């Protein structure tokens, strides 16, 4: 850049031919650019690669049915995680009325339920079945976080519900 000016200002008499003395100075600006670019790159990659942890608190198993938590039918939403990233959901306590959805659309369902129910009654029951994956479970727990759901529980589906899911899967041709 400015190195040019230095060259231009070197005085040479008219007609005097001298072996041109080239400046040994190299413009280091691009090198500095590169250096800082690499620094920035390394700083960003080191902080991003840190794994995060999601808290999961499970309730104590109780054999005594009296200690089981009572959930109001009007406030409950049951999400059953099935094979092939499909969610089956129903409101209240009637599994036969279950509907099908996916992991993207479930957020709206949760939000609608949250809006239409008093906060104290809202309870989401998550039932991952045998064919659900760990990713499904984490995704749905994450969804609870995203939608700021205070009360939810993760339990196994009842045999009735499981057979219902399997029937639906067979009918829908989910393998």
């Amino acid at each position, binding site marked *: *850049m*400015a*190195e040019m*000016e*230095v060259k231009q200002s070197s005085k040479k008499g008219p007609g005097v031919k001298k072996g041109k003395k080239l400046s040994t100075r190299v*413009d*280091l*600006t691009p*090198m*500095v650019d590169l*250096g*800082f670019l*690499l*620094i920035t790159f*390394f*700083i960003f990659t*080191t902080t*991003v*690669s*840190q*794994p*995060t*942890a*999601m*808290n*999961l*608190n*499970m*309730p*104590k*198993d109780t054999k005594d049915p009296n200690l089981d938590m009572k959930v109001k039918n009007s406030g409950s939403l049951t999400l059953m*995680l099935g094979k092939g990233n499909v969610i089956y959901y129903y409101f209240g306590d009637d599994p036969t009325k279950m509907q099908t959805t996916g992991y993207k659309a479930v*957020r709206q369902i949760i*939000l609608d339920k*949250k809006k239409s129910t008093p906060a104290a009654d809202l309870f989401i029951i998550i039932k*991952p*079945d*045998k*064919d*659900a*994956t*760990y*990713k*499904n*479970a*984490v*995704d749905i*727990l*994450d969804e609870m*976080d*995203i*939608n*700021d759901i205070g009360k939810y529980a993760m339990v*196994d589906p009842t045999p009735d519900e499981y057979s219902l899911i399997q029937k639906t899967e067979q009918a829908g041709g989910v393998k």
Partner: protein
Amino acid sequence: MARAKIKRGSTSVDMTPMCDVAFLLLTFFILAAQFKPAEAVEVNPPSSVSNKVAPEKDYLNVTISKDNKVYLMMDPKIKGDVLDELGKERNMSFSAQDKKNFENSDFIGVPFSQLKQFIALKPEQVKGMDLPGIPVDSTNNELKAWISAAINAQMGEQLNFLIKGDDAVKYPTFKAVIDAFKANDQYKYNLVTNSKAVPEGSELYKKNMMEHAAGKKQ
């Protein structure tokens, strides 16, 4: 009156010191960066919006690989005690050599019956081996014994339970791991995940924004 002539200096700045600084910093960051230790078991965890950093001290890490096998890693400083406790619980005897081997091993991926042979192997030998994993079936849940040994070794101090599973892990395996923890009266876990941005406009996003705004006012 002779006016002082303003000297027109060159606008070129010598970049050498700056270059030196840049590369010095670069070298420093590269050397200071903690390289991820080559992972014993390759796992691709799911992502979550959680922004809590996974604890790196006093941990017991249960890793579930994509073929539903369970491996165990732990804080190197409790390893010796864990093996002692395990010996007591399962009536197994470990020689000084076994103990040393155990402390040098990266992870545990075999049932108790093969444990001694497994820890005698060098990490290079373990790589690429088809390991059976730690049994977590309801009939033979060896993970339970490991967890209880680790809890005893930690002697009442806080122990962080990390569970790291692959995306493809089936839910029953994860549940079996949780059951092993539950059998030891442990109900709090940290699921290791990759971080993901909070979706804009969601409830959590609004909550975070409100907290952020409240924090600014104070």
